[in-house]
């Protein structure tokens, strides 16, 4: 059957990828829990992910908060419901936009650079050299990145939440003529612990997915500069897709009634 052949081949390739990815995930997480740990490397990755992503995440957050206030105003003014703006801003930012946008930005920044770095190490035999020097690449390369991703993303997202709400505040006060203390009071009243917590849980999961994809595609890259390029693209695309789909799942878990 010539029609079934390509279908079968695609299914098999898919299953193989799923199997390899699961194995990679299992090995990586198990190395995150067992010594030896590399505190220096962990610190370096935490700075790389947490600190150096601040500008891009902050910019994304502030403009998102600003545009959110502006757009809700256009919509709500028709029903004289402008007072709901602080509510819309805080809920959207903490629940969805903060974690998702920060996750996507970090996927582009950190996921890509991880895939490129580890991929280059693979094609220039540096990973083989690590192995021969009796150092486990999962422990030395993958574990610090995963741990840094899982811990740093929530901190980034918390910062993004604050900056995003501040963006909404700026537009509301200086452009839409809101009363500053009333806006802050409303924001505070509408803020729910569960909204913030769900956002931080999402952030942690996204941090895991971003770094996992960066490491997985880098580790399995082959064939020189072109292979590293493909790995980088795949890392960003797969991380983005996983972020958006897992975002739905986590939202469902937290808020579905």
């Amino acid at each position, binding site marked *: 059957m010539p029609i079934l052949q390509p279908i079968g081949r695609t299914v098999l390739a898919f299953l193989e990828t799923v199997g390899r990815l699961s194995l990679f995930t299992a090995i990586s997480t198990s190395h995150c829990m067992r010594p030896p740990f590399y505190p220096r490397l962990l610190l370096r990755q935490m700075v790389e992910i947490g600190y150096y992503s601040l500008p891009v995440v902050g910019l994304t957050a502030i403009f998102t908060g600003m545009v959110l206030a502006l757009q809700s105003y256009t919509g709500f003014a028709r029903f004289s419901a402008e007072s709901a703006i602080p509510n819309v801003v805080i809920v959207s930012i903490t629940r969805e936009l903060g974690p998702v946008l920060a996750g996507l930005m970090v996927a582009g920044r950190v996921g890509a650079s991880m895939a490129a*770095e580890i991929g*280059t*190490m693979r094609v*220039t*035999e*540096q990973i*083989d*050299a*690590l*192995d*021969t*020097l*009796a*150092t*486990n690449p999962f422990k*030395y390369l993958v574990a610090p990145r995963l741990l840094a991703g899982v811990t740093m993303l929530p901190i980034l997202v918390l910062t993004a939440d604050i900056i995003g709400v501040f963006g909404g505040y700026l537009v509301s006060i200086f452009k839409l003529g809101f009363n500053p203390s009333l806006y802050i009071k409303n924001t505070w009243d509408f803020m729910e612990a569960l909204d913030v917590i769900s956002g931080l849980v999402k952030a942690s999961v996204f941090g895991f997915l971003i770094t996992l994809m960066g490491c997985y595609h880098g580790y399995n890259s082959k064939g020189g500069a072109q292979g590293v390029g493909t790995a980088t693209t795949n890392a960003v695309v797969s991380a983005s897709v996983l972020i958006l789909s897992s975002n739905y799942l986590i939202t469902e878990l937290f808020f579905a009634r």
Partner: protein
Amino acid sequence: MTPGPSNEGDPNEGPPNQASPAESASRGGPQSPKIRIRDLYKSFGTKHVLSGMDLDVGAGESVVVIGGSGSGKSVTLKCVLGLLQPEEGSIQVDGEEVVGLGGESLELVRRKFGMLFQNAALFDSLTVWQNVAFGLIQGQGMARRQAREIAFDRLTAVGLEAEVGNMWPAELSGGMRKRVGLARAIATSPDIIFFDEPTTGLDPIMGDVIDELIVKCVRELGATALSITHDMASARKISDRIAMLYDGRIIWAGPTAEIDRSNNPYVDQFIHGRAEGPIASMVNA
């Protein structure tokens, strides 16, 4: 060059890279070679690189493998180190089977080895001295200060000045990288050292210095060496025995002095670098 402390700061591990003769004898019998490769098969897709390769390397011996470009010399070394998995065959190191080994036990076997990669494979996120000290710090848990001293010693031994130690691999020339790779391979004073084309890309004088260094490692430190080279002068100088890899098999192996009397047309053609001969006809076919 001093034999580096092998197991300081790692008391539970025992001396991983200085297996005593008694120990290897007890495990592999008194005559058993350090490395014993039998009937090794390795292919990539439909390309058969090794097909039934046999090779023995005795303890304290220096063996050179020669053979055409792409004949599978580097692949052989990677199979022994467990970086590539052969389809078939057996590789024993000190009498211990390494094919199919994984995890901790493979890591223990690897501690016996030092490897100079063909392209040096230096870690470009670390400075030169950190590269050289890597096996001491990460593998043996040595203090950084002490490892740094040994690293600078080794750099001197391969003819590099102290300033180079604080440079980054990207700032080095090809020959310098090769020598840093060599310093890294010998830094832990391993029991078995693999040199993949140690003198390629070096000037003739430095090539000779490196050859002497390899001889010294073998004679003075009692290491076992398996090297790959295309340079016959260097091969004659560093080897006790030479083996020629052709068509996935060792087609000739013998003491270095006998290579000119091998009566093997392939070997003759290779060592004299002639375009005419049985190998050329295969290449053109």
